[in-house]
């Protein structure tokens, strides 16, 4: 994540420092490392495949690539007191600027006033689905990568803010209520260039049922844009041109002060060798907005352990309910460049893609796993499966072969 205003992060770290300073005993420090070394190849020569909009370069057809899945993360956990701890995590991976410099992904202090209640302050992973905030930890899940169909629609990784978690046991069962709030700022890459997404304020709540073998989770939240991100200069330029078409285009592209509501439903059956996880996520855009469209995102993944092998199959899909890429500038003489920029921005916010996945994970040793995976991907509009020769192509199909070595120590 690029540098950004982070008042809550600073507050969290200051609190952590004061907690450390006021405690007489030396804090316990636990370092950790995790990562993925991935190789991928696909068969569609004019297509590029990325696992996230936050990556500059994708895997090109017919070429072996190590850039879309590989990453290295370091984490430091500090236990300052029985009821005060914190963690900081940096991750090196391919970013929207093409660089691999490590960036801060987590940095928080946690307070536990009572055993069933915890408050975390600082930079936190955005928790929208089961597994969303651990999706960089390849060793933690069966597949080579978290499904882009589930996570590419709204590519927000983390928030600077706080979350509050309350655990309530009812008999042998547990219920967990979590409230969270924070701001986020992200950059993405499109057509080889870096763009800043609008800053967003997220508030959300989730209720999780934790049974012996079953988990259910309902998440609800609101994401409100605080500016127009990289679109702001374009919107302003359009407003300065006194034509009806440019005013229409400015209105269609202005994403400032937009409230998006999301609802997530997760179910996990995890018993012995079998694991079945289903996730469904709905982003509902405001009614009547001329450009932004609501999205359905989902994934189903089944895995079954046989000795040290874990074969798995999965399906994932994303559908944008309405795709209206008109900007209002079509056919206006002299504004072709603006039209291209505006249409590109609208197209980049549209995700209609599905994938079928089959693969196997092999536990090499404790803390290290090798995975082989085949994905069949079909996209009609997608910021992560792009046609390098014909950006308007709405029938993008590819077969992706992937191999990954995941580790976590």
């Amino acid at each position, binding site marked *: 994540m690029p540098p950004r205003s982070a008042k809550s992060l600073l507050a969290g770290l200051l609190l952590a420092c004061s907690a450390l300073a006021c405690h007489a005993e030396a804090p316990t420090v636990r370092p950790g490392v995790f990562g993925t070394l991935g190789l991928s190849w696909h068969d569609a020569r004019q297509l590029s495949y990325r696992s996230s909009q936050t990556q500059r370069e994708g895997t090109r057809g017919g070429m072996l690539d190590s850039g879309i899945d590989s990453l290295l993360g370091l*984490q430091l956990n500090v236990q300052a007191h029985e009821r005060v701890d914190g963690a900081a995590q940096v991750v090196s991976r391919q970013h929207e600027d093409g660089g*691999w410099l490590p960036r801060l992904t987590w940095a928080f202090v946690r307070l536990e006033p009572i*055993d069933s209640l915890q408050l975390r302050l600082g930079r936190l*992973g955005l928790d929208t689905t089961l597994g969303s905030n651990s999706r960089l930890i390849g060793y933690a*899940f069966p597949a080579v990568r978290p499904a882009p169909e589930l996570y590419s629609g709204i590519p927000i990784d983390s928030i600077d803010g706080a979350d509050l978690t309350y655990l309530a046991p009812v008999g042998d069962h547990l219920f967990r209520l979590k409230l969270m709030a924070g701001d986020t700022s992200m950059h993405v890459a499109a057509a080889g260039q870096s763009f800043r997404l609008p800053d967003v304020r997220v508030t959300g709540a989730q209720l999780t049922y934790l049974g012996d073998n079953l988990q259910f989770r309902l998440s609800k939240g609101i994401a409100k844009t605080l500016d127009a991100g990289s679109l702001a200069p374009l919107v302003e330029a359009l407003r300065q041109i006194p034509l009806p078409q440019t005013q229409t285009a400015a209105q269609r592209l202005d994403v400032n002060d937009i409230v998006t509501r999301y609802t997530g439903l997760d179910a996990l059956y995890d018993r012995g060798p079998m694991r079945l996880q289903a996730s469904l996520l709905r982003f509902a855009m405001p009614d009547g907005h001329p450009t932004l469209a609501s999205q359905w995102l989902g994934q189903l993944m089944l895995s079954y*352990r046989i000795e040290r092998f874990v074969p798995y199959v999965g399906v994932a899909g994303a559908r944008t309910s309405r795709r209206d890429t008109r900007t209002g500038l079509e056919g206006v003489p002299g504004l072709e460049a603006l039209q291209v920029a505006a249409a590109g921005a609208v197209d980049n916010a549209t995700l209609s893609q599905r994938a079928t996945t089959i693969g196997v994970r092999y536990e090499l040793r404790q803390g290290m*796993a090798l995975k082989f995976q085949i994905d069949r991907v079909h996209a009609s509009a997608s910021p992560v499966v792009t046609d390098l020769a014909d950006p308007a192509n709405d029938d993008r199909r590819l077969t992706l072969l992937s191999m990954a*070595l995941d580790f*976590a120590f």
Partner: protein
Amino acid sequence: MNAFRPSLLFLALAMAAVLTPAPGSARAEEIVVIVAADSAVSQLSRSQVTNLFLGRYKQLPGDGRAHPSDLAELKDNFYRRLVNKTPGEISAYWARLVYSGQTVPPDQIDSIETMIDQIRRTEGAIGYIPRSRLVEGIKPVYQLED
């Protein structure tokens, strides 16, 4: 970092991992979950033991904060019997929790004597040992069937 060559590192690490033997198999012994003899806890259910050792819940019923510890020599066997998970699966489970800032795994203790000593002197401590090693000062609160 631009010179980072994941593919070469990939091959080297994969070969090293393949050539390294996997951890040994677990021994078949009766395992009991234990707390201090003066603990208010007299019995736990399988779900409660699972919640405590998988970091889901940190409170012993009626007895304050729990401090679970793993016994290195029985750990693989313990989790196989408790949740039918392999050491790799337990390792993956903890990787997810640790690296998403949720919680950290139980401390690992290397010997039965140290485990018993810790249970006796640490408030809220909970661990497991072979049933044959039960002694004064600790009590079983759950038995894992073979």
